[in-house]
């Protein structure tokens, strides 16, 4: 049932997704799709449902209705193989969530060894490789608390990369960082995009979204309110998006 998607099929697709927290309807018929190699930015006000939509893709939230297909996995079904799904999907959080009791190297090698049965020496080589990708080779043996926020977030990205996911999810990954540290994290993400990684990101960095995203999904009150290429940020058609980008800072 969970066959590999053919090249023409989207990596992630949501169709008419519904989700409520109690009486609050957070997602009200959300549909969008992400093609292989595409970068999709989910934007919108706080409470618009964008983070929930992202978390549904990795099934951190169960949906009430609709269909979600991720790399061939029917995520909306109760019998979805979560471990198989999460080997295909990498997720990076706002609060980094590195494991504080492990070194950066151990943080990275844990899942490849435990989940994929990779040999320790091979996993250590892999750790070096992915840390080089995020520019942190020298922090191999450091503990998370010895790193700055930006470094921790880059290490978290490296940890995710080590599982060689087919799609990466970024949940407001720079929201806890000051502008300087934000820049170093965004640079890493830009490089990933250039390397052809499929990505879905929830972000408040409008300038960044404009520069990197192939497509923008603007969410408003649990619905996809406007969607299109990055240019919709400079020439929005709905008054809500107009107001949103007007209040956001559009640096480019």
């Amino acid at each position, binding site marked *: 049932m969970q066959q590999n998607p053919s090249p023409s099929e989207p990596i992630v697709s949501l169709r008419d997704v519904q989700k409520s927290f109690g009486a609050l309807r957070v997602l009200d018929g959300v549909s969008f799709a992400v093609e292989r190699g595409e970068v999709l930015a989910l934007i919108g006000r706080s409470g618009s449902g964008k983070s929930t939509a992202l978390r549904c893709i990795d099934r951190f939230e169960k949906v009430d209705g609709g269909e979600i297909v991720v790399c061939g996995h029917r995520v909306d079904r109760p019998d979805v193989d979560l471990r198989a799904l999460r080997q295909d999907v990498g997720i990076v*959080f706002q*609060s980094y969530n590195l494991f*504080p009791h492990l070194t950066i190297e151990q943080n990275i090698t844990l899942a490849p060894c435990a989940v994929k049965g990779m040999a320790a020496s091979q996993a250590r080589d892999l750790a070096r490789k992915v840390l080089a990708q995020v520019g942190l080779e020298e922090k191999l043996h450091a503990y998370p608390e010895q790193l700055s926020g930006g470094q921790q977030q880059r290490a978290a990205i490296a940890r995710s990369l080590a599982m060689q996911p087919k799609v990466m999810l970024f949940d407001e990954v720079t929201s806890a960082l000051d502008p300087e540290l934000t820049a170093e994290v965004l640079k890493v993400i830009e490089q990933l995009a250039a390397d052809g990684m499929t990505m879905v990101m929830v972000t408040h960095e409008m300038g960044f979204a404009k520069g990197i995203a192939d497509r923008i999904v603007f969410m408003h009150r649990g619905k996809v309110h406007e969607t299109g290429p990055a240019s919709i940020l400079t020439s929005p058609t709905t008054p809500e998006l107009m107001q949103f980008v007007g209040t956001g800072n559009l640096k480019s």
Partner: protein
Amino acid sequence: MGGHLNINHLMFLGQGALWTIGLSTIALIGGGIVGFVIALARISPLRSVRLASAVYVQLVQGTPLLVILFLGYFGLAAIGLQVSPLAAAGASLTLYVAAYLGEIWRGCIESVPKPQWEAAEGLALSRTQRMMKVILPQAIRIATPPTVGFMVQIIKNTSLASVVGFVELMRSGQIVNNSLFEPFAIYAIIAVVYFAMCYPLSLFSQRLERRMGRGRSNLAPA
């Protein structure tokens, strides 16, 4: 009858003190093993397991240890199961300690921030792997100070085992007093010995707590 406190009495008390330590160790190890199972059962994904373990904890915590000890010793004898005072005291204390340590440890496991679970889930680790490799190593550090603190309670509570005839420190004091009739002197000695066992543990627990309080840097084994 009468006479004075001599070296033989003191040796007898010393032997009792050793049994207090022995019984405490049994209670800690037995209660620790069962308590660990209880802690995991309390957060099990299975509702029936959670419920059963919660009932166990409530039953034990709602019953005086003295009653549990009587049940263990006389209760089992009543249904034809002869147990030695040591076995009865060891088993009763194990059940008692397990309920408390189980709850303490459940709290410690749950106090590991939720995002740690999510990060481990996002990396496709199985529930067992998440528990063993991510959550428990962090929970153990959180659990150490309250566990050492609870050991003080265990040591003091072993004195109740004297009621089923187990000759630990308290019971040996009673026996010596029965021949000397110097309750004040003898129980003062007993109090000092208990204090000498417990106070270092209390200090150690406080030190551990302070060290934890200084923040995450101490989570990393330097």
